[in-house]
């Protein structure tokens, strides 16, 4: 059965996103599925256009990695009218759940919690001033990871967030903002830990910390989210402490669910949650690095 699946991807704003795209493409090829790929350049309207385009073409299913949670009711309704199953990837949407087949996502609030729990355990009651590198202002991941972390440390009065700024999810902003944190907090001596909403910003910050004459991972503890290959290297070298994995392989479970659905109409559960594995310095980071380095990060 040579099915055609349309994949509306957000864009290519980060290495993780590129990995997700390449994993999805590879997976589709392996399963003999024709993948129609549409890059939305970070714009919701382009995603809506792409979905409508897929419907007009009459694809067999649509994968949607929504740029934002809201605003999908109408177009998903159209897909439903046209009897095309839609699978959401890496983010859920604010829409009645009969409009899509299933959602394969990680729980982004939970990711923040995992990071927060780790720090709580690592500090174990010692007073600790945390600086936070947020993602792009307004992105739902930013909001969720901030919330999850805050929730987790809510019951730990020893841990305090003293500065929080956006680093736009990029390495260079991560570095620049960290530099100013270091200056503003007594050359970094008042900072005990850094929580970054993604690994790229943390990697930038690590360089800033080194340039300020401090040891990342020791003088300032670092925890972040994504687990990109470079972060595993950094942890393996003791320059960072922990990262929460966000798997780029959302398409695997999605295709599996779709294939079952095509075959005999099996309805998958409405939410297929991917695991948020924590990697610390105790994990086998080099193995993780080797596994991931060719995935297109």
């Amino acid at each position: 059965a040579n099915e055609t699946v349309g994949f509306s991807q957000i864009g290519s704003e980060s290495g993780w996103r590129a990995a997700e795209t390449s994993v999805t493409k590879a997976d589709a090829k392996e399963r003999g599925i024709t993948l129609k790929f549409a890059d939305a350049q970070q714009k919701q309207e382009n995603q809506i256009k792409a979905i409508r385009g897929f419907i007009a073409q009459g694809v067999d299913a649509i994968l949607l990695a929504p740029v934002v949670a809201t605003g999908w009711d109408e177009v998903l309704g159209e897909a439903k009218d046209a009897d095309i199953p839609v699978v959401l990837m890496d983010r859920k949407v604010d829409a009645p759940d009969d409009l899509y087949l299933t959602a394969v996502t990680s729980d982004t609030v939970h990711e923040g919690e995992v990071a927060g729990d780790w720090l709580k355990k690592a500090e174990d009651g010692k007073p600790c001033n945390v600086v936070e590198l947020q993602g792009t202002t307004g992105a739902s991941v930013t909001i969720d990871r901030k919330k999850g972390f805050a929730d987790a440390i809510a019951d730990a009065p020893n841990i305090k967030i003293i500065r929080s700024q956006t680093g736009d999810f990029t390495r260079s902003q991560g570095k620049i903002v960290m530099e100013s944190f270091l200056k503003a907090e007594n050359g970094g001596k008042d900072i005990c830990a850094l929580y970054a909403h993604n690994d790229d910003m943390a990697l930038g910050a690590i360089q800033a910390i080194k340039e300020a004459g401090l040891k990342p991972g020791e003088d300032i503890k670092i925890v972040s989210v994504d687990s990109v290959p470079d972060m595993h290297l950094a942890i393996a070298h003791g320059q960072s402490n922990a990262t929460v994995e966000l798997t780029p392989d959302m398409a695997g479970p999605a295709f599996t669910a779709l294939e079952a659905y095509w075959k005999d109409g099996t309805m998958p559960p409405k939410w297929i949650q991917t695991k948020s594995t924590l990697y610390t310095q105790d994990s086998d980071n080099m193995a993780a690095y080797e596994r991931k380095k060719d995935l297109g990060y």
Partner: protein
Amino acid sequence: MRHSTRLPLYITIVTFFVAYAACIFQFPNMLSSRVVANLLTDNAFLGITAVGMTFVILSGGIDLSVGSVIAFTGVFLAVILRDTSIHPLAAFAIVLVITTVFGAAMGAIIYYLEMPPFIVTLAGMFLMRGLAYVLSTESVPITHEFYGWLQSLYWKAPGGGRFRITGLLMVLSFVAAAIALHRTRFGRNVYALGGSAQTAQLMGVPCARTTISIYAVSGGLAGLAGIVYSLYTSAGYSLATVGTELDAIAAVVIGGTLLSGGSGFVAGTFFGIMIMGLIQTYIVFDGTLSSWWTKIVIGGLLFTFIMLQKGLAWATTARIPRANVSAARS
């Protein structure tokens, strides 16, 4: 070049139909009422924005703030509908007043402080996006039933295409703008300003009023586009429509309007929008382009359209002799 101002318009229209025909040849599915309806619906907010941008560019200016204004409008509507119980229509009225006044304020700064539009509207872009953040960083869904009712207003054409009210609104905006630009004194003053602001001033064009009105129109239409966008997505999101101003400018330019002002047609903008929509539809139908090739192809097609226009314009005007005047001497 100057002898037939309509030529770029005709060229744009021809280009669109030729390109559409070529697309259909490759993907017969593209000849469906769905695709046509999508072109209208999906580009409605961009089209309305581009109408305002046409006014601005015709007058020799530029408005970079429109993308942010759309986002602000969406967030504002979402927040106000969430937090208060006022009717969406009233909210629409409020937000249109806000964006129109905002545009007028930019126009006033541009005129009275003699500052370049590029920079004033760039600051306006930062400001509006910033205000949208301040209102809400999260995307806020709009659940009012009036929205649902508006969205249910469409005509389902044979073939599955849904012609929606927003598409109609865009078409109406274009018609209204065409009338305003060609059949009112205000419209002609817009062209006059674009020809030469200094000369227009000497000829007695009320430059202050016209400049302010132009940016007010652009702001107001961006507000209207924001309303359309909020209908389109049923939500307000402060990160929405980043870079829309560049799309709108590109559409206006592809539509044959000169960025230096004074020459062009709003109808050209309509086809500029359609051409841009066609490019995207084509890319979706093709579905093999990676993220980066998508960007490269969009850039390449943009270039191709510009060159096509240049080439056609050059080929047709090189042959037109100069105007022949007989100054009958008494």
